């Protein structure tokens, strides 16, 4: 409750007047002198007591009248949810959340999920309501909260699992919005296969931020066996194809791995996959057709999760391309190592053009991407020129070096540099964390053999993705999207001054991954993550059309947007200007691991919600933003009038006593 005009509460000071008069009257009773008490008798004690009680009652009534008068002017109001029906005794809102991730397509899990949801609908009370939500990549609310069970069942029958991954922490954050606006206490019925890979890093993220009862409906049925192609790639150096087959089964198994190119099977191998382990399968380089080639690898026989039995890769036949390498000295070791590594990549057919500043002839747009061996050597104009090039769709690899030591912010990207104790000579540090899921680093091995003595300590911005860090946590390789282009920042040097990476075996594969990634669709291979977006302009097209793996035209995400959501696995084709590019989209390998959360963790998760049967105030009823004030002034005035009448009656009674009239 709150007051709409609290200033009128100052009127409460008037309570002091009757109080003072009461005290005055009590302190100065009607006292008279008389000759003698000889013939007098005291008044009846009951009458005297009644008079005192009545006087106190009268005082209370008068104070009450003044208080109510002040309150009535202050306009007290209670905040109420405008919509009715939020206070039914015992009523609940059953929020039935269906796990729509790819793993729910395993066997008959989806059927069991529907059955569990139907069981929930069977058990809801007459006053209860229910709402169905499908949780996958997106949080999809399937209709409003209703007590109409028939329509809810119909909605349930139309729901199907997707191919995306579900992360439970993200799910609970998304559900908060629904709980907050709920008018009834919420029971969260989560129908899921409780995949262990879906748990967030912090367990606390599983707690609903608003009070709700958590009921977990586990639809798993015993141990699940699954074999998947969890990676598939082509060596940018040799063109050799490698596939990794992973087992999520309790027993060893032999699987057949089939390779096909543009719809034609070109290879097949038998592979023994250990229980819970991996098996590598290698195929020789393919004879690629001109343009993009659709290369697939599949594992058979098929298991209960079909979606992860196949993996796709778009491989493009190489065409000669130029790369600009900027260095202080064209004969320095930095440009030497870099150009040598790049020109080794026959699958990309790159030619390194090593130059010193200034820029401008030939123009930057003639190059597929740019390598700056030490960003410290760029002046402002050169930095601005490269920045414009990148934001216009260009790609660049920026490295640091001795000339970068005095910088506080990096040119081109503008990233802040921390106070850098590592700039001094130190004992060697190896590479620490590596994001092996990123195309740049996928398949790159033996990176940790390199030793780093110096680096530039960059403060990663929110938009930066750290692909590789040193063992002490210093970011080593970062990616940033700038406008339509992309930049990779290597915080150490490309020569041997600050590290020995250039003479390590991992250097050429790393440069191959970097080059292939910077080339994007124009590189040797082209891949994108399921659930990410694809823009034709990023592939160098203007006004191109994108077709999904089924051959249908993919629609933009919104009005005027060219971005297309990659929500299917397979090959997306970008067609425009008489040519086309392919982008391979693959299943998220984390969904292939069907191992459920252990029972203890499940119990802890349930404990994060309110206990069953515990009364929970609907959040919406307490949320002021969703409520409107309802004045209780009229009620106060009614009570005020009642008090005034009582005050008159009691006052009259009190005066009768004072006058000595028989009551």
């Amino acid at each position, binding site marked *: 409750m709150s007051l709409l005009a609290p200033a009128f509460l100052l009127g409460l000071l008037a309570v002091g007047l009757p109080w003072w008069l009461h005290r005055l009257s009590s302190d100065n009773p009607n006292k008279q002198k*008389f*000759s*003698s008490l000889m*013939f007098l008798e005291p*008044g009846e004690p009951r009458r005297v007591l009644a*008079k005192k009680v009545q006087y106190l009652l009268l005082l209370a009534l008068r104070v009450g009248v003044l208080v109510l008068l002040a309150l009535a002017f202050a306009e007290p109001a209670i905040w109420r949810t405008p919509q009715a029906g939020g206070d039914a005794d015992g009523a609940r809102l059953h929020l039935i959340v269906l796990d729509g991730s790819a793993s729910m397509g395993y066997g008959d899990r989806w059927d069991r999920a529907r059955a569990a949801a139907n069981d929930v609908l069977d058990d809801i009370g007459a006053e209860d309501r229910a709402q169905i939500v499908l949780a996958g990549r997106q949080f999809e609310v399937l209709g409003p909260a209703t007590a109409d069970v028939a329509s809810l069942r119909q909605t349930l029958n139309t729901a199907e699992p997707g191919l995306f991954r579900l992360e439970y922490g993200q799910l609970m954050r998304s559900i908060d919005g629904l709980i907050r606006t709920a008018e009834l206490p919420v029971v969260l019925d989560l129908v899921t296969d409780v995949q262990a890979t879906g748990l967030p890093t912090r367990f606390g993220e599983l707690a609903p931020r608003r009070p709700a009862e958590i009921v977990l409906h586990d639809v798993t049925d015993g141990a699940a066996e699954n074999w998947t192609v969890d990676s598939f790639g082509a060596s940018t150096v040799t063109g050799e194809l490698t596939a990794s087959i992973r087992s999520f089964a309790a027993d060893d198994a032999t699987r057949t791995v089939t390779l096909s190119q543009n719809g034609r099977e070109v290879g097949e191998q038998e592979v023994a996959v250990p229980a819970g382990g991996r098996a590598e399968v290698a195929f020789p380089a393919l004879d690629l057709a001109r343009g993009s080639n659709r290369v697939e690898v599949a594992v058979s026989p098929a298991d209960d999760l079909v979606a992860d039995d196949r993996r796709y890769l778009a491989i493009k036949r190489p065409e000669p391309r130029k790369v600009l390498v900027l260095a202080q000295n064209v004969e320095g070791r930095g440009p030497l190592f870099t150009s040598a590594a790049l020109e080794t990549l026959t699958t990309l057919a790159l030619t390194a053009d090593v130059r010193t500043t200034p820029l401008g002839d030939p123009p930057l747009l003639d190059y597929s991407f740019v390598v700056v061996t030490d960003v410290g050597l760029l002046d402002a104009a050169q930095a601005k020129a490269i920045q414009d090039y990148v934001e216009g769709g260009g790609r660049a690899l920026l490295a640091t070096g001795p000339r970068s030591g005095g910088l506080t912010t990096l040119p081109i990207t503008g990233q802040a540099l921390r106070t850098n104790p590592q700039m001094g000579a130190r004992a060697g540090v190896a590479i620490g964390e590596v994001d092996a899921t990123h195309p740049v680093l996928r398949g790159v091995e033996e990176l940790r053999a390199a030793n780093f003595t110096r680096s530039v300590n960059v403060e990663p911005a929110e938009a930066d993705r750290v692909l590789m860090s040193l063992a002490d946590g210093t970011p080593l390789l970062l990616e940033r999207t700038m406008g339509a282009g992309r930049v990779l920042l290597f915080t150490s040097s490309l020569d041997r001054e600050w590290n020995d990476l250039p003479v390590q075996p991992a250097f050429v594969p790393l440069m191959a991954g970097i080059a292939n990634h910077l080339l994007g669709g124009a590189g040797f291979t082209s891949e994108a993550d399921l659930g990410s977006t694809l823009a034709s302009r990023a592939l160098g097209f203007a006004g191109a059309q994108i077709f999904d793996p089924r051959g249908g035209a993919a629609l933009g995400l919104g009005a005027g947007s060219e971005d297309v959501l990659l929500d299917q696995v397979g090959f997306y084709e970008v067609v425009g200007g008489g040519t086309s590019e392919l982008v391979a989209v693959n299943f998220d390998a984390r969904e292939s691991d069907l191992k459920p959360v252990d029972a203890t963790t499940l119990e802890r998760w349930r404990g994060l919600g309110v206990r069953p049967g515990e009364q929970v105030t609907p959040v919406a009823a307490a949320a002021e933003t969703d409520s409107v004030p309802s004045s209780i002034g009229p009620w106060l005035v009614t009570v005020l009038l009642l008090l005034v009448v009582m005050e008159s009656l009691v006052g009259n009674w009190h005066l009768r006593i*004072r*006058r*000595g009239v028989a009551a």
Partner: protein
Amino acid sequence: MAAGSAIPQHLLAPETLAGLANLDLVARAVVNGFLTGMHRSPFFGFSQEFAEYRAYAEGDDPRFVDWNVYARTDRTYIKRYIGETNTRLVILLDASASMGFGSGKVTKLLYGKFLAATLAYLAARQHDAVGLIVFDDKIREHRRASTRGGRLSGVLHAIDRAEPGTGTDLKVPFERFHEVEHGRGLVAVISDFYCDPDALLKSVQPLAYQGQDVILFQLLDPQELKPVLKESALIEDMESGQTMEVSPIYMSSKYRERIDAHVELMHKSALRAGADHRLVNITEPLDSVLRSYLLFRQRRG
């Protein structure tokens, strides 16, 4: 309650007397006004009309010897006038705290002082000896009865000095009187008599046996006789200081019955003790009180 409208013009209401500064003046005004109205009165004795001769006795004032008769008869005779009895009047004035009560300008004590002064003046005019005892719970003034010149002035001054004191003890003045006054005479007791009638009876009876003629003037305020209370009040006893919450309904009903019964009992007790009792409402003129006194004196004289 005020009786002013019923008072003849030649009489002065107590409120008017209260405006007079001098008690002697009050007594003269009352007595003279009273005597003026006595022209057609059946009473006698308050004139200079000759009544008889009486043989001179020791103690008589030589000024009243008729020397003409002595010359003719060689005997001393006293010339007596009508109304002259040569008696003695002792006034017992109650100056206790309760006598200080009054609902108007005149308190009971002030009225009692007027009455005492008037009686003293009237007695002096008749050549009676006048004595005075002022008391509360002890003797505060005592003037023995005497006819000597200047005695009246002393009595009046003593009356004038009387102020409300503390409690009341009627036994004290009567005992004093019994100790010092031995001759037969008149005793006028002026009090509100808030006491036990039986105790009063025990005090008065010895005087009656001694041959004293006692008259009790019981002075009460109209608020004591017919009190009017607008609301419940805390009543404080003027003598003891005790308080009591009293309701108006009691004061207008039961109290009146009790005070009337008390007055009636006082009257009966006085009669049994051989005394006269006169209830005086202090709003009534002194004239009627003097008339009661004269009737009493005539009856006893």
